[in-house]
């Protein structure tokens, strides 16, 4: 945790030494925007090829970059956009958005032992359901895609924007869970030949109940699906283990993004604790949308209070119509007092941050939504050094 002598720890330095940065944290704190801003800054200042991978199905990344849309394939942010922003980046910025369905199909393509099995899996009704509707599968595919892209060696830095998850680091467990599922007794049992399964005394009640509840056809579908799926076991398990390893390596770091509101912050703290419990590298905490420091200035607060009390008198002194000006002055004062309360609460929250990593960086609240590269870079500047 000790900074090198002479150089202050910063996001700049952190990202210069990493290959993968995973932005995680509670929903609604601007995670996607922060991930994109960090990637854009790295592309500008460090050079090389930088990819921001969003796993959020909403179009936030495209919106933040001011692009019409980003798909499953990696897309280079046009250099002209940087030029328009008056910047000559040292490197390239790329972006991609995860498509769960396409991700699953690609996996099947890769791991299916033969074309027939591949086709049967892709056409199985259960598979189609898993790949498109089933939410948890998103997490698995996200990590899988990250691994896939990283292993191409096409990028110097990959910044990942993780799915909004209330359950801390669900996505980190996804590869492991998948591996466990494949080696579970249940799967072996489900995929055992029907006859040998039926004669197992212990399983008979299960079979009977399952048939009553689900119907025979569905059970047959399930069985077929799992038999097919199991043919991909070796590939899946090996892959899942590799993903878990990669996440734990030194070249991977995690950025916890939060606002200073109490609820998101306590979730962010849970993320940080979870990371340290798993021995993963918490590189930085990015506190987004913080109120400006002048709101916490006690002198300014005293002035606001005086203004609230003496609005009529001040209005009269200004040689304006006090009946018009005084209410405005009072509104101004009250507004300051209100926001000052929130700003002080934020400061308190920040001071209480339990596990502060080396880099804690704050981005101010922006008065307008960020919907262009210049906006993104302006945000990036605030968190970079």
């Amino acid at each position, binding site marked *: 945790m000790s900074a090198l002598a002479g150089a202050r720890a910063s996001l700049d330095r952190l990202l210069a030494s990493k290959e993968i940065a995973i932005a995680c944290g509670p*929903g*609604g704190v601007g995670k996607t925007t922060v991930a994109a801003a960090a990637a854009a800054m790295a592309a500008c200042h460090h050079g090389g090829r930088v990819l921001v991978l969003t796993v959020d199905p*909403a179009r936030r990344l495209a*919106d933040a970059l001011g692009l019409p849309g980003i798909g499953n394939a990696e897309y280079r942010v046009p250099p002209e956009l940087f030029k328009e922003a008056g910047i000559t980046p040292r490197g390239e910025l790329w972006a991609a958005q995860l498509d769960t369905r396409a991700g699953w199909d690609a996996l099947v393509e890769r791991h299916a032992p033969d074309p027939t099995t591949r086709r049967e899996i892709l056409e199985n*009704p259960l598979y189609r*359901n*898993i790949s498109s*509707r*089933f*939410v*948890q599968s998103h997490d698995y595919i996200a990590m899988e895609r990250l691994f896939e892209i990283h292993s191409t060696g096409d990028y110097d830095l990959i910044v990942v924007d993780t799915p909004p998850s*209330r359950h801390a680091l669900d996505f980190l467990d996804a590869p492991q*869970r*998948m591996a466990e*599922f494949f080696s*579970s007794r*249940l799967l072996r049992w489900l995929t055992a030949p029907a006859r040998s399964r039926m004669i197992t005394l*212990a*399983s008979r*009640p299960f079979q009977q*109940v399952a048939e*009553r*509840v*689900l*119907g025979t*056809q*569905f059970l047959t*579908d*399930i069985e077929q699906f799992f038999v097919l799926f199991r043919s991909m076991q070796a590939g899946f398990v090996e892959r899942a283990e590799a993903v878990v390893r990669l996440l734990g390596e030194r070249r991977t770091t995690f950025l916890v993004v939060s606002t200073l*509101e*109490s609820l998101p912050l306590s979730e962010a703290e849970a993320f940080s604790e979870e990371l340290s419990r798993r021995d993963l590298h918490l590189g930085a905490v990015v506190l987004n949308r913080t109120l*400006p420091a*002048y*709101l916490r*200035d006690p002198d*300014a607060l005293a*002035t*606001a209070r005086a*203004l609230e009390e*003496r609005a009529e*008198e*001040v209005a009269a*002194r*200004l040689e304006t119509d006090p009946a*018009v*000006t005084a209410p*405005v*002055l009072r*509104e*101004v004062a009250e*507004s*300051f007092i*209100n*926001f000052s*309360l*929130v700003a002080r*609460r934020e400061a308190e929250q920040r001071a209480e941050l339990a596990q502060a990593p080396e880099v804690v960086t704050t981005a101010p*609240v922006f*008065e307008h*939504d960020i919907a262009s590269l210049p906006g993104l870079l302006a945000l990036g500047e605030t968190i970079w050094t």
Partner: protein
Amino acid sequence: MSAPPEVPSSLFDHQLLFVTGKGGVGKTTIAAALAQLGAQQGKRVLACDIDATGGLGAMFEAGPIGFVPSVVAPGVSVMSMDTEASLREYLKVNLRVPLVGWIGPLAKTFDFVATAAPGVREILTVGKLCYEVRERHFDLVVADAPASGHVVGQLGAPQAINDLVKVGQIRSQTDWMIELLSDPARTGVIPVTTPEEMPVTETLELTERIARETSASVVAVVVNRVLPELFSTREEEVFEALRSPAVAASISVALGGEVAPVLEAARLAVNLRRAGASDLRRLHEQLEASVPLLLVPYLFTRVGGLRSTRQVASALADELDL
């Protein structure tokens, strides 16, 4: 913004309300406030924390909440969703078979099944909610549902199962669940948003997805944390004049303290409000006219706990003319 909300007085005559929305918009607070209001209308309300994060209980200053509903306020009970417990309950109620022997291993393997089989968690969640409605243990069930995308999966789960399972006991049960979820008089979805670009965009997408992919109806949209409007147009001109260096300087002299940061804060507040107002307008324009917008003001004073539940409930009551 101040278009009169045409809220049917029947919001609390529903039996099942799904409160959803993007993370960070204050969905749990709204769910708690709606439960509180329902109880004030004389309903026996069950609020269900589907993410099981404990947030909903905290809104009533309650201790740890489990699968079995516990009373947290007059007329309000809270439970925390647990899909495994839901499965056990389902089996106990529906299959009068001795469960010993395989319920044990079932628990161990449940996670694996739920990881792999489609919609298992979703159907157990939505199934439990529908069950509570059918059994009439409560008049109203308010679900603090998961973030936007997931709720579509939950609402669509019975239909998804129906597509896969053609016969059997499950099939007949998903049939009545679909019937309940499709009845706009009994089931409603309430997306929560804030007046910000992304939450509004997501809310619009969500209402579209609900219409397209599920048979459920959106009965209201709650806009949370709406900043107050500081000035009228005329007052804004006065404010602009006050910000000129000369005028600001004389105010500072009059008060004996630098007024610039105070004026700057008001400018920030005006701009933040204005950015939100355009998103609010967009929501208003693109949302179906029949869906009422309920505005809840930003609370400067408190975040979380029973006090803010009460404040939000009272703001909602104003919007609903209760």
